[in-house]
């Protein structure tokens, strides 16, 4: 009786349990990504160099087709993402066509471009077609092309693209693609570069295999070590081709006008420099430098109020043929000898880094896998002068210096070079993601003091005036009280404006005394000393200086023998 009762109770409870516990509970979830489904891509890309904003393929609108607010200006209400263009709903430079637009035979039909602006309109929209082939991927460059069949001034040019990475993973693959047009009667001859083009280093030395690439043709991809380069495109005459930028150009020379330089048109100043971006080419990257005609050359109308008008010109852009790799493994190191009277052989993990260096000489950069190394400096006989641990992070660019310390002992200093043009603006509090500014024409100088008789020095520009970081604010860290052998770690670069004139003077400062006593026996550096190759400039005058990343080091054992040397870090 008692047991039965118990059994009933237990059974009853179990029944309630089973009856009530079966409800399935679902989490509340949401997914606000624009495109939540995988979108397989074809191998075919469109490179839109003609500033088209809208795209339709096979009758399907891929962009938002929103009219600009004011001509060429898209405000917040005209920015409507599509799943193909999730950021703005408009075409950018490159677009990989999704697989869904490729038909059974590999064709991509009815590619239509348009721009809803009126100012520099595109030719009437017309159909293009492309062919997708995974074994031979192509880029379709949409460009303005002259001369052209029919009356069209646009063209879709198919260019075979390499998607295979360089054979050496520390290298990059790069080519020059010349899609330049011929000028017409409206072209500004001073601005318009034409004909065969060559790719050159920053100092104008052409890169072998990249010379005289005729319009309509591309060089083969060549490999070179990864690094930060200011690659320049030269026309046959040796004049530089303008990189795509917003600089106002001198009508006569095609050079950029900015704040410093000789008085030019409309209150602007001629820099005699042609814009070419300084860019880090990432290891394993595949790049195409393409020259094409654009309506993006801004020239003064001559009106003293500074009015400008856009004109056409062949300018170049850097296109990444594969998505740019993230460098998580390589770093580069160079070494300098700033020990007077000693020749130095640098060794990394007992392997030589460059050849033996005499005083003030530097090695080329060598690429290393990140990690911890032993950096050693030996003399001619192989005796170790100094040794230090070298810790390398991905993307590091390190210059190793051997200098005599105050006691005369050879010592290694390591300085890390920022080759990105990006700098921390100091505004970040809790969120640092938005506190990075970019200098598009970096003219940066880092100062080092290796004169063992001087505990610290201060570098100034003309007349002892301090270097400015931003207008009104002195680059205190970068230029003042530079300690012997100690690289500055915070805001280490003096960031000069493009083409800024001014010498570099050096002062023996002391703590609390700025700038201190001028070391008049040390020849000041002129800004033109920073120009590597004056013959590059086919301009009426030389520019004041060249953009790039420099280190100015005060070297020499004794103050009397001391001098300043310039190390340029980018090629």
């Amino acid at each position: 009786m008692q047991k039965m009762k118990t059994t009933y109770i237990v059974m009853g409870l179990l029944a309630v349990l089973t009856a009530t516990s079966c409800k399935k509970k679902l989490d509340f979830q949401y997914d606000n990504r624009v495109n939540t489904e995988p979108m397989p891509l074809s191998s075919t890309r469109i490179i839109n160099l003609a500033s088209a904003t809208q795209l339709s393929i096979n009758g399907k609108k891929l962009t938002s087709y929103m009219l600009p607010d004011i001509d060429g200006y898209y405000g917040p209400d005209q920015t409507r993402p599509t799943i193909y263009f999730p950021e703005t709903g408009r075409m950018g430079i490159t677009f990989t066509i999704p697989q869904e637009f490729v038909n059974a035979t590999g064709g991509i039909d009815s590619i239509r471009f348009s721009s809803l602006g009126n100012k520099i309109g595109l030719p009437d929209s017309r159909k293009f077609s492309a062919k997708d082939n995974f074994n031979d991927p192509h880029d379709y460059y949409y460009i303005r092309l002259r001369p052209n069949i029919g009356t069209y001034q646009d063209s879709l040019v198919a260019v075979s693209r390499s998607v295979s990475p360089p054979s050496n993973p520390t290298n990059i693959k790069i080519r020059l693609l010349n899609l330049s047009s011929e000028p017409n009667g409206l072209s500004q001859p001073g601005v318009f570069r034409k004909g065969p083009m060559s790719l050159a280093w920053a100092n104008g030395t052409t890169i072998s295999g990249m010379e005289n690439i005729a319009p309509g043709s591309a060089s083969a991809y060549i490999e070179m070590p990864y690094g930060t380069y200011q690659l320049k495109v030269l026309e046959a005459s040796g004049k530089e081709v303008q990189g795509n930028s917003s600089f106002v150009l001198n009508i006569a020379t095609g050079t950029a006008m900015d704040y410093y330089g000789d008085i030019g048109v409309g209150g602007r100043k001629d820099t005699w420099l042609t814009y070419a971006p300084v860019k880090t080419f990432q290891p394993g990257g595949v790049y195409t430098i393409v020259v094409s005609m654009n309506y993006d050359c801004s020239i003064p109308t001559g009106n003293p109020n500074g009015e400008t008008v856009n004109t056409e010109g062949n300018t170049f852009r850097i296109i990444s043929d594969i998505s740019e790799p993230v460098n998580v493994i390589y770093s580069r190191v160079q070494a300098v000898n700033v020990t007077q009277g000693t020749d130095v052989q640098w060794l990394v993990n007992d392997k030589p880094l460059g050849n033996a260096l005499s005083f003030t000489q530097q090695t080329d950069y060598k690429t290393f896998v990140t990690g911890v190394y032993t950096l050693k400096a030996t003399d001619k006989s192989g005796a170790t002068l100094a040794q230090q641990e070298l810790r390398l992070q991905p993307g590091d660019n390190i210059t190793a210096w051997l200098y005599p310390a105050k006691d005369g002992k050879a010592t290694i200093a390591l300085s890390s070079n920022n080759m990105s043009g990006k700098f921390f603006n100091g505004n970040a509090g809790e969120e640092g993601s938005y506190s990075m500014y970019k200098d598009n024409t970096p003219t940066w100088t880092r100062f080092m003091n290796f004169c063992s008789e001087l505990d610290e020095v201060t570098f100034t520009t003309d007349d002892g005036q301090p270097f400015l970081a931003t207008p009104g604010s002195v680059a205190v860290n970068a230029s003042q009280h530079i300690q012997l052998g100690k690289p500055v770690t915070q805001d280490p670069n003096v960031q000069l404006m493009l083409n800024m004139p001014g010498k570099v003077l050096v002062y023996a400062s002391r703590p609390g005394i700025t700038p201190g006593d001028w070391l008049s026996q040390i020849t000041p550096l002129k800004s033109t000393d920073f120009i590597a190759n004056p013959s590059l400039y086919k301009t009426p005058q030389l520019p004041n200086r060249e953009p790039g990343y420099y280190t100015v080091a005060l070297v020499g054992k004794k103050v009397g023998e001391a001098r300043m040397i310039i190390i340029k870090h980018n090629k």
Partner: protein
Amino acid sequence: MQKELLLGCRHKRQSMQQYVLKLLLLLIVVMPVTRICAQQPGSKVVSVQFKEEDILTCLKKVEAASGQNIYYQPSELKPITKKYSAVFTEKPLRTVLATLLQGTGFEWQEVNNKIVIRKKERAAEKENLATEENKPWFIKGKITDEKNKPMSGVSVNVKGNKNGIVSGDDGSFIIKATSANPVLVFSHTGYGKKEYPVTDSSELSVTMLPGEVSLGEVTVSVKKRLNTESAVLIERKNSAIISDAISAQQIERTASITTTQALQRVSGVTVTDDKYVAIRGLGDRSVIGQLNGIRLASSDPDRSTIPLDLIPASLLDNITIYKSITPDKPADAAAGIVELKTKSIPAKQTFVFSAQTGMNTRAGNMVNSFYNSDMGFFGNKVKEKGLTPEFQALSAQYPGGLKDIQRKIADSRNDPAMLAEANRINNIMHTFDPVLTTRYKTAPLNQNYSVTYGDNFTVFKKHQVGLILGGNYYSRTNDIYEGTLTQYSVYQGVLTGNENVYSPRVIPNYITPNNINLGKYLNYKENTGTQTLNYGLLGGLTYRFNAQHEISFQYLGSRGAETRASNLYGAYEYTGIPGTVKNVIYSLRQSYRTLNTFNLQGEHKFLKGIYTPRLSYNLATSSSSQDDPDYRFANLADYRPNGGGAYTSPAEVPNTTGGYVGTAHLYSLVSGYVNGYGPYGIIQADPNGRRFRKLKEDNYNYKADVSVPFKLLGQKQEFKTGVNYLHRKRSFAENVLYLPGSNYSPNKALPIYEANGNLDKLVGYDRIGIRPQSGYNDEGAPRIGGFLYNIQKSPNNYKGYYETRAFYGMMDLRLTEALRLTGGVRFEMTDIQAAVDTSNVYLDASITTTDASGNKVNLVYTEPNSVYKTNYSPFYSANLTYTLNKEMNFRLGYNNSLARPELRELTNVFDFDPFQFALIVGNPKLKNQKTTSYDFRWEWFPANGEVIAVSVFYKEIDNQLTKVFKQNSKGLDAKFPEFPAIEFQNDPNTGRVYGIELEVVKNLGTLWEPLNNFFLGSNLLLAQSEIKKTAERLASSRAIDRRSPSNSPLFEQAPYSVNLYLNYANKKSGTDITTTFNMVGERLIQINLDGTPDLYSRPNPVLDIVFTQQLFKRVQLKGFAKNILDKPIEEVYANPGTGGMFYGKKYVRRSFNRGTELMIGLTYSW
């Protein structure tokens, strides 16, 4: 020596030490004396003379001369015909007995300080024929009280055995014995303990005598045993003041796991949120929680609450609620005292183990939880989630704040040491779980274990040591799935604190004072999962030197951990902008609480007999802590404009503007302002963030009472005096870690777009700490610090203490046999001081940063230190009890009392509490509240375990400390969400509470025979409270509703509460089933100051069934089903007394089902 006895208390207060020292000296003096007093019966010296008398007469003489009870069966001794003549002068009792029994075939034995005479043969047989002797046999009997009425509920034990029974309603009992000459032990609260040697199988007739008899026995039992209902009723009956109580028996019958659950069954008690206790409508500060006479520390940073839910009910003997107070009780118990008595020491060895398991039907096997929410079996994993010392050290290392760290990260390529430091900080920032959302998880079954062990021993021959050890563990899961939560308002619009997700406030034009409607403002579904675990340990040690001197020590420790994961999702209802505005809220909370109480009590009677002066003292320290590590809260508004929208991306090049990026969603982490506070009259209130809070409170409570009884008017009178010292020391530390995308950050919602509104991604490892390499891929580029959590303390850290000292004198006078007057005066002083930590705290960078022109705002703390001191002031109380007959009392009570502001309420900090959605502010101007109470009660105890009582009470409250919701609203001009401030104020209006309590506890069998096994209990409270609304509150309630009443009920005061229980106990079948019903009337739970009516909780009927079934001799099956009706719990916008309506419509703010909780398990007792 001193220090040890003070239980490690390092509290340096001169006066206290002296005080304790005196007590200890007293102890040392008293101890040796007590040893001398104890004597064995056989050694007692007697002088007696026999003249040709038979043995029975002789023995009576010896009894009379020695005062020693001698047990024997006269029928056995009758056959002895021997006559005795002898003179004994100052001879030991044993000599006398030896002479008497010589050659009779009888012998005497000392049995537990009693002398028993029995046959010699039996003793010999016992040795020889042990097997036969141990054959069980049954002893029958009947127990009556001093008036010859049958006594039920008397516990009957065979001495030396662990099992016992309880006498039935007619006083009869049957108990099994295994030995030939068992000694039965009868005990009943309020009565003496009686030992009765059984020599034959005839039916026994036992008479129990009340009162002091028990004092003559040397058996350790901690005072009275009050663990049964009838025992607590007797205690109530004999008490000088109005009290209600619930016993362990009732706790078990209601299957209460926590003390708060048990308390809900007491008349006049209401419990909110399973935590906050109110007596007769007065809550918080007016209710004092005491554990064994010692005040419990609060573990809630913002409220003065007693951590009752931390104390497992199974470790308690009883809970008594004193509703009228006497001078020996703290004067700040305006509403009453909740006195928890832990398990007392048993008279015999006991061991009870029970294990139960079950589930909540709404939780099922799924509970809303979150990643890494595992608390561990003992909750230790919660504790480990607190801020690491490394993180806390950062604020000292980087006094400049996060700016310094960001720079260090940016520069970290330039120096290996900086790199190492940046990486170290990155690792610290990555220690926080990258999760802000909740997920359903498999829920473990509910578990409940408890074990109790008790015994008493004799040491040093005469001294008694009692020991009790108890442990309890439970883990429970609740889950609300798809509850609804709707915010109604007269206003419409979308205020989120971000201009991108904004629609101005309007009052729709169909809402007029003649046509009052509320519109849905926000409408949510709610998923809330709660997992609770708790365990406690009780240890009690009593050392009894003799009947007069006893000291005891108790430890109660408990630990509790809770995980609460809440998810609300819904939308703003009337946006007035094209597109929908969805809203999702996540709240992830874990807490870990501890309570340690050490308690040393002593009770000393200086003389024998009932007119002895008594000293009792109690030295206690307790410490409690509450740790809320990583309480995460995120409230995301997601506006989906028709056709999409755009946000501005930041500029990369100096002095340029960024571009526009299109988006289908515009986001805002909802945040707002509180107007009217802080140095600038406005305080930012960002509920979003990760909060780390730590509260620690140390409590030192010392008290001593001396009572001196004397005889006057032929009655026993008593004078009592004593002192009480209480010192509570508290420290509160808080860190608030804001989230990326806060509206108060310079880039506002920008990070949320990058995470596509995904809150987990928002705090993912790629956004927190150093950004991944892809963010600074260029050669030598400065590394980018992503989002870093705020390293500085919040400005809400404070330390303080709360000290009261008191002394009193009172008389307990029995004017006549029937009339008893208890009263006196108590003097109390108050000293509350708090200091806000103003050093190195986080202040909003946008205010404190030096701007371009070198201006800097210096934030000045207004009064960081609060001091409130009062001198000793008198509090009077008088209680008059008229006992008509033994069964009936009439009581009148009067007392005045005070309530003190809580430390937090005085402390001048502004702390936004996302849980209450309000800014909690301190008010240093607070002063004590004064309450005058009048009580009347009629009690009738018709039979054992039965009571019928009616009480009427009236309270007048001056300077009432009231919780005030303040909202200086900009009304229709509001551009940001406005949160109210919660402040405590002394109400200038006098508050009044009056009510009536009815209580009936009845054995239904006495009414109708077939209901013999049924017991009915019920209590009902009807109370009316009223307070005049303040001018601003009235103005805002009448902004729209011009007929809004000018008076309001008191906060959380219910107009009625009803408890009913029906118990069926069938001793034959071993079945015990209790059905309880509980319902509490509507209560005001939130005061709205924006024109919207106030919020009330609706009555919710709760029906529970608890059953016990004896399965085997020592095994019981226990189980319960709680909240069987599972009616939705509702909160409504309403006017009071309208049945939850507002102008004929029901506006339900929140509705959810709590679920039925089922448990089943086994209990083994031995």
